[in-house]
């Protein structure tokens, strides 16, 4: 930055940037050549606060309880007496979206939960029993575990796996709607799209509405549904807070992020029934131990992955050739960059020996100590 426009006054500099800050108080224009929004900028929050509250005098009306109330009354208004089908994925977003809709229109809500067999241990049971207990009379849990496994047979390319899972979901979901919900005339398909899903980068210029995944693209057209997106303006942490304000249990709301294709992309290579069993059990042991030692809440994301190699071990007098389990636990603020989580050697040892002791088919446990970047958080 060499010359400032007329009327501007320089307010800050760095060694590399002469005009790192400037302002024109009369016109209320302010410029800064650093990022106040990133976490390592210690006083960044104060700079934004000065601008937003003192200079703009913006109203402080963004409160979770009023956001929750507004969403519920908007759903009531939009939907009226029509029926809505909402897809439950097992994740936080669709759970909160479904609960909001149910709170707004009660028995006009129909929930379809496709069990693809790729979820974490007990996830289907936990989420569906919670929903049933809380008045979801029309919850259809579709057991599609075999269908997914059949379609994934002999496929080891990650992109291919993702595609197959997406397409299989559409197939199963559509069939479920046609069969189970035939007697109701459904007008809306609800989905748990959140704010970051909708905002594209500036380079794609023409902006906004992007749709979350394949099924949402084809289903509404095929079945003539309108789309309902109750949490489309919220960030993940706000979705969780709305969930809390609705009385959803913390245990369900604060689970670590989980990818859409689930355990299928945490098994490197081909997905088989046996590999799924091993990974699901190992992951459950890992998470349980972390929770027991109060470590779970300190971690952004923790999970086990299965590497498709068999290595040698020794049990009793015999050699074994079994799978390797990689444990990943990372600290992050927003998932964009991540550091591996430092935990005590004693805890790591406890986790490792419990996995080897409890899970048949594993004889080696590794702890992943790579940062993102260069590695990603997930394995595929």
């Amino acid at each position, binding site marked *: *930055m*060499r*010359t*400032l*426009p*007329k009327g*501007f*006054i320089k*307010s*800050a*500099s*760095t060694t*590399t*940037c002469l005009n790192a*800050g*400037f*302002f024109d108080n009369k016109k*209320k*224009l*302010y*410029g*800064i*050549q*650093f*990022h*106040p*929004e*990133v976490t390592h*900028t*210690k*006083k*960044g*929050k*104060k*700079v*934004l*606060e*000065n*601008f*937003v*509250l003192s*200079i*703009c*005098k*913006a*109203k*402080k*009306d*963004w*409160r979770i309880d009023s956001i929750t109330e507004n969403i519920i009354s908007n759903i009531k208004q939009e939907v009226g007496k029509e029926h809505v089908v909402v897809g439950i994925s097992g994740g936080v977003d669709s759970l909160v979206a479904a609960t909001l809709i149910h709170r707004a229109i009660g028995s006009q809500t129909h929930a379809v939960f496709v069990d693809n067999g790729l979820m974490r241990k007990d996830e289907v049971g936990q989420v569906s029993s919670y929903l049933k207990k809380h008045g979801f009379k029309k919850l259809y849990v579709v057991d599609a575990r075999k269908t997914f496994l059949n379609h994934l047979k002999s496929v080891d390319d990650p992109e291919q796996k993702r595609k197959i899972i997406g397409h299989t979901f559409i197939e199963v979901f559509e069939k479920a709607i046609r069969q189970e919900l035939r007697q109701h005339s459904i007008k809306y398909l609800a989905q748990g799209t959140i*704010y*970051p899903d909708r*905002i594209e*980068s*500036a*380079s794609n*210029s023409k*902006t906004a509405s992007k749709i979350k995944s394949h099924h949402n693209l084809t289903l509404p057209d095929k079945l003539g549904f309108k789309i309902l997106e109750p949490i489309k303006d919220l*960030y993940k942490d706000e979705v969780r807070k709305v969930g809390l304000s609705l009385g959803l249990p913390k245990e369900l709301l604060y689970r670590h992020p989980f990818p859409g294709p689930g355990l299928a992309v945490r098994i490197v290579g081909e997905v088989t029934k046996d590999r799924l069993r091993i990974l699901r059990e190992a992951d459950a042991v890992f998470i349980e131990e972390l929770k027991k030692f109060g470590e779970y809440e300190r971690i952004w994301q923790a999970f086990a992955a299965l590497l498709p190699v068999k290595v040698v071990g020794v049990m009793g007098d015999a050699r074994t050739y079994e799978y390797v389990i990689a444990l990943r636990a990372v600290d992050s603020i927003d998932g*964009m960059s991540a550091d591996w989580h430092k935990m005590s050697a004693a805890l790591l040892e406890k986790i490792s020996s419990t996995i080897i002791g409890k899970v048949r088919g594993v004889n080696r446990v590794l702890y992943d100590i790579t940062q993102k970047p260069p590695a990603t958080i997930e394995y595929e």
Partner: protein
Amino acid sequence: MILILNFGSQFAHLIARRVRDLGVKAEIVPFNISATQIQKLDPSGIILSGGPASVLDKNSPRPDKRIFALGLPILGICYGHQVMVQMLKGKVIKGQYREFGKEILNISKLSNIFSSLSPKETV
């Protein structure tokens, strides 16, 4: 409500989250939203986000220039700050060093956006 003009969505999202943490509604809109549309949305202020482009590139994104005449407070961050200088007839030159990582900010005017800060801050 604060409007964030999106010159790079990762930056825009982080800003929106911080503003919402202050209890204020923040909406992200395309960088080329018209001044008339902005008036309709009636924000208390505008933030021009950072982004990957350089204002020295011919085809780099520009906001509607009438936004600077709306009388609304505007904060330009990084790319947003350069765009503001360029469009208000200042001069931007290519920096000798790329600006990476942490730096010490020497603040000469501890008022308005810098009030309650110290003369030296890590940014």
